[in-house]
Structure formats: structure tokens, C-alpha cells
């Protein structure tokens, strides 16, 4: 029996290898804004939301922390980027980095609050922080424009060369590139020892602590990084749309992204991305058929999805097996 460590190693490392489907997926994704120029705008929106969902996956799927206030970071990144572009420098990439950094710091501070208590506690604490940020943005209307939103954000060209156009192709490609780069980083991280640690914490905190893992430190680290990524998504949103408004902090954003992530499946990186694509497309299509009652059909889809099970929905041939 030559099974040996080499075989076991190969088995464990298999998910971290790139599979052919993934190459095809990303190729299609990047081609989309150019082959479907009329849809570049929604591709942009989906890319941003997918990035946001990816960051939530780190928190929810990989560390098991339930958060209903992830939009706090989305909003903070958006406003930081918008204010930076308006008052300091309209360069997109620099603004992106600044916003990401700022939000990461915020995440670090907030991560102290999620360490104790039950799931419900965390749910409410994260929600409370997001809503407080919303009220803060509303009150500081001399800075943020209050409920009218922060207008007049004129972005410079990306890398000094690509202007944001009306068709949205530059915006979409910009967002997709950022999404892809961050995806690569997160993917690498998740399959590195850090990823294994964090999954161990998610699966059984007590045992993880028992084998010497500093649970609180690790969770804080993941939460902080996830906050930074969410801030990047917010910055992209502000930069590609040219403004920021209060509802970026609202409960709806946090709830929507959680829905998307759960639809796609938590704990595997593509869950957030595919969930975002599925949800946004469904919303768009149903909304153009029935602008007023589309929430009903989305609700129905969610109920059916849960009752029937994600497996059975995606693989109809399994309906008649056990």
C-alpha cells in the first residue's frame, strides 16, 4: 500500500487547484461587457455586489459569524472614495486603495464587538453599528450631502487612460478586474493554512481553542480583511456611479447580500458570485415584467429553493431519486 502522505496531500490540495470550469467562467465573465455592450451596466452592478458577497462569505461562510450589518463597510468605503475623489484627487485607483485601507481600519475597530455572545447578539450588534453609521452620515450632511446623497463626484480616467463612458464598459471591466484580483487573493488565502484554521474555528470553536488556536485573534483578522474587501466594493460602487447615498448603509443592502450568498451557498467562494449573478438577473428580468409585484416572485423562489433544496433545484434529474 503505497498510499502515503503524497496521496493524502494531493487529495487535500485538489480543491485548491484551478479547474477547467473556473477558467471558462472567468473568460466568459470578462468577455461579457464587450460582447453584450447593452448589458455592461448590469455586469458592473453584479460585479460589485459579487465582491460584496465574497467578503461576506469570509465572515459568514468561513468564520461562521452572522452579520446583518456588513453594509456598514460597503457604505464607509463608498463615502470615503466619493469624498476622496471630490475633495482630494479624482484618480480611481488611488481612491480605491485609500477607501480600502480606511475601511479595513474600521473593520479592525468593529471586530471587537462581534467576539462575544450568541448568533442573535452578533446579528443585532452588527445591524446596530450599520444603522448608527447611517444616522451619522445623515447628520453630517455638510460633509455627506445627507439624504440627498453626495453628488458631483467626477472621476478621472482609470490609470490615466480609460475614461468612464456612458455605456459602462470601462466601469464594468474596472470592477471585474478588481473583483478578479481580490478573488485570487482570497482564494489563495483560503487554501493556505489560515483558511484551514478559520474553518476549524467555524466548525467547532471549543475544539479549535483546545488545540491552541487563538480564536478571537483569528476571527478578528478575518473580519477585518472582509471589511476591507467590502469597502473596496463600496468604493467601486461610488466610483462607477459617481455618487454615494444613505441607503448604501441600510438594512436592505445587508439583507440582500446575505440572501445572495445563501442562495449561492456559503463556504465556497463561488457561492457569493453565483448567488449575486442569479439574484440580480432574476430581479432584473422579473422587475421588467412586473415592476410592482416582483418581490412576490422572488419570495416564492426563496421559499421553493429552501423547501426543495439547492441540490434538487440545480440538478432537476435528481427530483425522482431519494
Amino acid at each position, binding site marked *: 500500500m503505497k498510499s502515503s502522505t503524497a496521496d493524502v496531500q494531493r487529495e487535500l490540495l485538489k480543491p485548491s487547484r484551478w479547474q477547467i470550469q473556473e477558467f471558462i467562467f472567468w473568460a466568459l465573465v470578462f468577455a461579457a461587457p464587450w460582447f453584450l455592450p447593452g448589458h455592461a451596466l448590469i455586469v458592473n*452592478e453584479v460585479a460589485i455586489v459579487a465582491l460584496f458577497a465574497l467578503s461576506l462569505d469570509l465572515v459568514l461562510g468561513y468564520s461562521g459569524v452572522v452579520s446583518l450589518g456588513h453594509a456598514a463597510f460597503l457604505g464607509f468605503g463608498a463615502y470615503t472614495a466619493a469624498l476622496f475623489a471630490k475633495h482630494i484627487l479624482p484618480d480611481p485607483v488611488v481612491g480605491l486603495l485609500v477607501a480600502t485601507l480606511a475601511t479595513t481600519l474600521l473593520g479592525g475597530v468593529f471586530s471587537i464587538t462581534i467576539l462575544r455572545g450568541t448568533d442573535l447578539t452578533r446579528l443585532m450588534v452588527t445591524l446596530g453599528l450599520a444603522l448608527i453609521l447611517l444616522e451619522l452620515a*445623515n447628520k453630517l450632511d455638510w460633509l455627506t450631502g445627507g439624504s*440627498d446623497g453626495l*453628488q458631483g463626484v467626477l472621476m478621472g480616467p482609470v490609470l490615466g487612460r480609460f475614461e468612464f463612458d456612458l455605456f459602462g464598459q470601462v466601469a464594468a471591466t474596472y470592477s471585474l478586474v478588481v473583483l478578479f484580483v481580490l478573488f485570487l487573493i482570497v482564494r489563495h488565502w483560503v487554501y493556505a493554512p489560515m483558511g484551514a484554521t478559520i474553518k476549524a474555528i467555524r466548525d467547532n470553536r471549543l475544539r479549535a481553542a483546545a488545540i491552541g488556536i487563538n480564536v478571537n485573534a483569528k476571527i478578528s483578522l478575518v473580519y477585518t480583511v472582509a471589511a476591507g474587501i467590502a469597502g473596496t466594493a463600496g468604493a467601486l460602487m461610488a466610483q462607477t456611479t459617481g*455618487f454615494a447615498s444613505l441607503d448604501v448603509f441600510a438594512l*436592505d443592502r445587508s439583507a440582500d447580500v446575505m440572501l445572495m450568498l445563501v442562495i449561492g451557498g456559503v463556504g465556497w467562494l463561488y457561492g457569493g458570485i453565483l448567488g449575486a449573478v442569479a439574484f440580480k438577473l432574476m430581479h432584473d428580468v422579473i422587475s421588467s415584467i412586473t415592476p*410592482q409585484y416582483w418581490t412576490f416572485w422572488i419570495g416564492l423562489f426563496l421559499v421553493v429553493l429552501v423547501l426543495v433544496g439547492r441540490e434538487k433545484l440545480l440538478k432537476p434529474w435528481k427530483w425522482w431519486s431519494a
Partner: protein
Amino acid sequence: MQKRFLLKALVLSASLACTGAMAEEKFKIGLILPMTGPFASTGKQIEAAAKLYMAQNGDMIAGKKVELIVKDDTSAPDVTKRIAQELVVNDKVSVLAGFGLTPLALASAPIATQSKTPLVVMAAATSSITEASPFIIRTSFTLPQAAVALADWAPKNNIKKVVTMVSDYGPGIDAEKYFKDRFTFNGGQVIDTLRVPMRNPDFAPFLQKVRDAKPDAVYVFVPSGLGAGVMKQFAERGMDKAGIRLIGTGDVTDDDQLNGMGDVALGVTTSHHYSASHNSPTNKKFVDAFSKANGGLRPNFMAVGGYDGMRVIYEAAKATKGAGGQALLDAMKGQVFESPRGPMFIDAQTRDVVHNIYIRKVERVGGQLYNQEFETLKDVKDPGKTR
């Protein structure tokens, strides 16, 4: 068999060719409204009014078929902007319309400017909106118009001390500022200015504060739909018995809800540009037709903004023979006509609406509650621009 098949094929291809040809000749209007969420009633009223106008005036302009594309933006500005962009780029609309709230209109302004598409604001009411883009036309109203009118009327009617209570967002702040400035200018005194948070407004503590301040009147602005809540709390605190009057802009006694408010609304004096009981033949026709087409629903000022917006679009398109862009915009500026609200025109300089503002009181007429107009201020321009 062969012949029949050939015939069918001929007919089919002929009709396809026709629709193909017709598809080239369409005049598309992109109507972006909040159809879901807390402002859904605004969306419903405007959509109904727009459809009514089309039903009454046909769907052909200068040989082109008019297509109304209605989209829900769930009151999220980045969605509004994306939808506006898609309508311009994909559907190639000649005009954007609707816009239920100020941030939604402001977010879409750059699209109008960049693509040279006229944007008709049918609902949003903050003064600064028309300045956000040279392609914006407004057919709704502005809060300063209503606020200043009331600030002129109040001191002449024994109201010297007022507490203002407005919702904490753009139009509310406009309403408060312009009322306060004009009222103090007229010798009145604004004892306190209260702002109620937009989300989950609970008026009880704020109205209690008003009551404790003992003013002659409380001046209220809340967005369309929340008026009933204010009325109820007003009555519950016994404020009318304490001698405090309720005045405000007409959003508080929104026609959409007014009849259901009950006797507590009687006597409330407001200033606004439209009342469903406005006594003119144009309005009677409008109200009747609207009611009939929408199961007895009474049109409110949102509906009138939509109806007049369609009128502006139609007439402008007729003048340009269906062309869009700068020519369409120019044909919209300066239009003068009789609206269900009364006479109105679109100011050629500011592209904003100029109309009469009426002072009205809630009375029971024929068993139903209406805002009865008793004073008219003619041709009120937006004070926000004349500063």
C-alpha cells in the same frame, strides 16, 4: 396546402416587415418610478395618470408610435441611475420621466446631460434639482413655492408663533427654511424647528414637544403618505383643544389619503398647487376619467405632476416631429397650458414649473373630505431660484 402555407408565410413576412418598419418609428418614454417600498403609492398614482393621458390622447405622435416603458427603482439612487442609463443606451428612449424622490433625480442628472436626453421630473420637489442638469424640466412643484405662500398667509390670520415640524430630508429642510425665513420676515416668530427622522417616523414625542411649547400653530411637512399619522397623533394629544392649529404644505392632506382621515382633518389649512376639488372643467374631466379608470381612486398632486409631464412631452414631441435631444428640450421650455391644477407654464430660463398656489381648508363636501381652495396666489415662481 402549399398555397395556404405560402399565403401564411407571405402574411407573416409582411407583418414582420411592418413591425420591423414600425419598430424603427417609435417614440419611447422611460418612466422611472418607485413602484415598491414606502413610496409605492406615488409610483402608482403617476403611472395611472401617465396611462390615462395616453388613453385620452392616443399613442401616435407625428407618425410614430409612443411606447411607455415603466421601471421600478425601489427608491435606491444607484439603481435609478443604472436604469436611466440602460433606458438611454439600450432602449434609446427620447425622454426620461418620473423620479419620485430628490436623490433619485439628482443621481440621474448626469445621464441626462451626457446623453442630451430631456428629463421630466414629475414628483420630486427640492428646489435645486433643476440646476443639476440643463436637460431637466419639472412639472411637479417645489416646496419653497408652497412654504412661502403659507408664510405670507399665516401672519394675516392670527398666527404669530409657530413651531415647524418637518421630515429630515431635502424637501423637508427646504420647506422649513423657506417658511421660517419668510415668516420671520413677515413679523412672525418660529419658536422651534423640529426634524423627524425619515425612517420609522413616530410623531408622538415630536408633537408632544410642540404641544408643550404652546404655539399658535404647528407647521408640518411630511412626504406624501405619512399625513394620516400626523393627524392622528395631533388629535390624540388634544392639540386642537389646546388651541393649536395645524398648517402645512398640502402633502399632509394628500388627496390619496384625505378621505380616510376622518373628522380630525377638518379645518386643517394647507398651501399647495393641486386639490382634487379644484373648480375647473379641465379638472373635473381629469378627476372623473382617473376615477373611472382606476376603480374609484382619487388622483392626487403626484398624479397631476405625471399627467402634466406627459402633456409637456407630447406637445414637445409634436413640435419636433418626434425628434429628441436639444430640440425636444427647447420645445418643452416655455410651454403654457391649462392643467387640471389651473394655469401653468414651464419657465424658459429655469425650466421649472410656474403655477398658482392655493390656500385650502379641509371641508366635507357631499359626504367626502376635500381641500377646498379659498385663496389663490397667481403664477408663483420657485423662490429658491429668485434668490
